[in-house]
């Protein structure tokens, strides 16, 4: 687009809902990959249940995106029939699972942000967004309590678990910056009181994250370099592999239902 025209509230809403729904969809899919592979049965169940919550929330967010977009696309259409460049999730959630500690660290960094986002969205001037946020927040409050608890137990655990958690944090930290970068769409929604500006969530997120990490005896990396691009559709190669698996059935058998 050549002009830098201010996006309409409607366009900004659709973009925001895709970003929100794509984050929950891709992370939900990622953690569902653990099903049957976790170190202990209880954690297997916890990951599968968290995935279910996130995918349920995706249906609400993408369902509303399709409705507001008004082109007849359903949540399923949006999840299964878009290509990687049309996905708007942050790069953080498409990082491969790594070991259990890595998965948990990614979850914790995301949960802490997700919690602040949803808390702010419960005050949205758009009641459709406020009610999805209120519903999701109950589930995400539970997620953050679980992930924060495990971060402390593993970070402040054995030498081996501590090392793995610190390695995970070192690798993932540079993917957190993108969560707080706003653009013209975010400006429009913040101005309209529909969604918080991403930058406004940073301090609260950092407070919870710093406190938990310090209790876990983990050190926040000093490097300030941050990857970005996901929310504009510029992804790492990992997203394509996720979509290949997630979308296969609908691509191979269009419209299949059961």
């Amino acid at each position, binding site marked *: 687009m050549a002009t830098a025209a201010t996006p309409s509230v409607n366009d900004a809403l659709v973009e925001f809902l895709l970003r929100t729904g794509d984050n929950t969809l891709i992370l939900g899919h990622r953690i569902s990959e653990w099903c049957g592979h976790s170190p202990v049965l*209880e*954690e297997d*169940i*916890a990951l599968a*249940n*968290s995935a*279910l*919550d*996130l*995918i*349920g*929330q995706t*249906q*609400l967010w993408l369902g509303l995106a399709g409705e507001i977009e008004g082109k007849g696309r359903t949540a399923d259409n949006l999840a299964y029939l878009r290509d990687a460049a049309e996905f708007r999730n942050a790069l953080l959630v498409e990082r491969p699972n790594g070991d259990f500690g890595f998965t948990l660290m990614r979850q914790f960094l995301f949960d802490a942000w997700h*919690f602040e986002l949803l*808390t702010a969205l419960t005050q949205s001037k758009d*009641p459709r967004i*406020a*009610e*999805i946020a*209120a*519903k*999701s*927040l*109950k*589930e*995400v*409050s*539970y997620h*953050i*309590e*679980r992930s*924060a*608890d495990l971060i402390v137990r593993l970070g402040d655990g054995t030498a081996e678990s501590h090392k793995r958690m610190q390695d995970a944090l070192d690798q993932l930290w540079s993917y957190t910056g993108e969560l707080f970068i706003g653009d013209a769409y975010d400006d429009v929604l913040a101005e309209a009181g529909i969604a918080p500006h991403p930058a406004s969530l940073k301090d609260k997120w950092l407070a919870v994250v710093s*406190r*938990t990490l310090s*209790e876990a005896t983990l050190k926040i990396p000093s490097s300030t370099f941050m990857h970005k691009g996901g929310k504009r559709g510029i992804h790492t190669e990992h997203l394509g592999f996720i979509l290949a698996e997630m979308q296969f059935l609908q691509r191979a058998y269009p419209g299949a239902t059961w």
Partner: protein
Amino acid sequence: MTQPVLPSLDQVRQWLSVVPDPEIPVISLTDLGIIRDVNWDDDTLVVTVTPTYSGCPATSVINLDIENELRARGIEKITLKRQLSPPWTTDWISAEGREKLRAYGIAPPIDGTAADGRLMERIERLASGSNLAVACPRCGSSRTEMVSRFGSTPCKASWRCHDCLEPFDYFKCI
């Protein structure tokens, strides 16, 4: 053509109060508190249902069960409405429902202990007041501990009892 007499709303609620939850069949949909409203819109019965968890796989089964039950009772025109707000809370589980859960072996939710996302503050708060003591549904002992925050369905956590040594489900507070 004669207009059939529509059943009263009390009658409809009565019918719904025997439709079992598909995952925990010992309690009914009304015990669970997910039927938010029933109303006649002309000759169409509108049943408003709120989901428990947004991704709960039982949601579509619940809708189907409601429809089947009402059709079997002779109601022809039915609309199911999904209501998200206010979001479902375990506070809405009836006293009778809680007793049925306990008898079935699932410890009922303890009101006021829902996660609020502030683990540290919560631990302090719980420690200063009464600790979260979930009574074992089998032997009644409060010497119990949480094994996992999650359980066999989205609405449950896994606990175990130190007295009778049995594992049990706790219907987590939300």
